[in-house]
């Protein structure tokens, strides 16, 4: 269980997260919607320990990310995929995917490489496994980013606007794989602007506005007139997003 309790995060005078409460159970796909600056990415960065909390508590399977000793365990259980890929440019696709399994899980190199090639194959990059990031398209790079996270066999996949830097065709490549993962029961926390896609794959949808969690509803209820749409801020956001 991924538990976020009364989380507060402040940057200078700005409160970016203000008392956010959220629980993600294994097997769930939870999408986080909200306009830019609403705190979505910061929430992900708090879960994987890249930002220090200014209040509240986050636990991943009971491991508190604010305690240095427990953070390592928490990080082993969550895999992050970044908006701008953040691949290691000096390593091939296989090198990128096998680094953490070798260094952190202490897998023998051969085994880690076999695992890396298998996962790259499953995201359709088998033939490009030995290419460097600079030789790959944006969609291919993000699929490497996804494979890198999956290689750690995380219990929770944290996806931070993973298609925001991609054109529609490349977005489709990546979303196709995410849909596949959702069907196979991978737990995901999915920060996105792809509303239609979120609607298709999510069990629940959470809406953030100005660092506050406005609603946390089952997908169908979120898009119903009596549920999420009853909030003027959400109705406004959805109508704007769907016009584009």
């Amino acid at each position, binding site marked *: 269980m991924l538990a976020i309790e009364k989380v507060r995060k402040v940057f200078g005078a700005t409160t970016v997260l203000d008392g956010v409460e959220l629980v993600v159970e294994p097997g769930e796909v939870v999408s986080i919607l909200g306009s830019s600056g609403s705190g979505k990415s910061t929430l992900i960065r708090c879960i994987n320990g890249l930002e220090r909390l200014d209040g509240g508590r986050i636990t991943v399977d009971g491991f508190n990310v604010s305690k240095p000793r427990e953070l390592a365990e928490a990080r082993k259980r969550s895999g992050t995929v*970044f908006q701008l890929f*953040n691949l290691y440019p*000096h390593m091939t696709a296989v090198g990128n995917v096998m680094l*953490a399994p070798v*260094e952190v899980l202490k897998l023998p190199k051969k085994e880690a490489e076999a695992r890396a090639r298998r996962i790259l194959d499953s995201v359709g990059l088998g033939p490009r496994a030995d290419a*460097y990031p*600079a030789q790959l398209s944006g969609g291919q790079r993000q699929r490497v980013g996804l494979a890198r996270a999956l290689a*750690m066999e995380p219990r929770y996949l944290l996806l931070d606007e993973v298609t925001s830097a991609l054109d529609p065709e490349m977005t489709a490549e990546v979303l196709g794989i995410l849909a596949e993962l959702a069907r196979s029961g991978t737990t995901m926390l999915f920060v996105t602007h792809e509303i239609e896609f979120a609607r298709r794959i999510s069990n629940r949808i959470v809406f953030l506005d100005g660092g506050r969690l406005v609603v946390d509803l089952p997908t169908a209820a979120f898009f119903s007139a009596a549920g999420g749409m009853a909030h003027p801020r959400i109705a406004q956001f959805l109508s704007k997003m769907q016009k584009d």
Partner: protein
Amino acid sequence: MRYTEFTPYDIVLLAQGLGVSLALFLATSAIGLVLGTLWAVTRFYRVPVLSQALAFLAELLKNSPVLVQLFLVFFGFPAFFRVNVTPVEAALITLSANTAAFVYVIAVSGIESVGRDQIEAARVFGLTRWQVLRRVIAPQAAAFATGPLVALLVNQLQVTSLISVIGVADLTKIGNILNLRTLKPFVVWTVVGLLYYLAAKLVALIGARIETRLRAHSAWRGL
């Protein structure tokens, strides 16, 4: 026999001088590279006191003439610490420390050239600071730093000529001796200069090879 003539043995003398210059260059470069890199690592780990002290020492070494540092070690150390310093020891200490100071500056900028996103990407998967330094930062910093490092080493090769002043029989010292004997400065210093030039070219060539290898991953960039 007239002593102002060149003899075949002079070539052996010049080769010996070149050997001494190259040996000192290689030894001080190796020590300087290791020391300078270690200094940069203490800065990466923000070791209190030590990292500030080393940054200050590097500042002193970078901003004072090598010749003055050499005199300080060769004449100053024996007087102050009451130890005997041979010319070769003085040359080794001075040139190694001087190279280390410049390597430190280049290594620090190399480490800082690696983006935060790279460090974060490795940290979220549970790599320790040391693993991040070794597997993610160092290879990228090395690719960044090779160009400046080769330029530095080519320059440090020329700087070794200063040690002739305290009596080390390097290439310049041999040139000086031949010059005094033959009284043909134009010939002697042209040959000596050419030998330094060839050695420097060799260093640059090896450096370029290493740089190409370290940057293999970005070979497609710019297409």
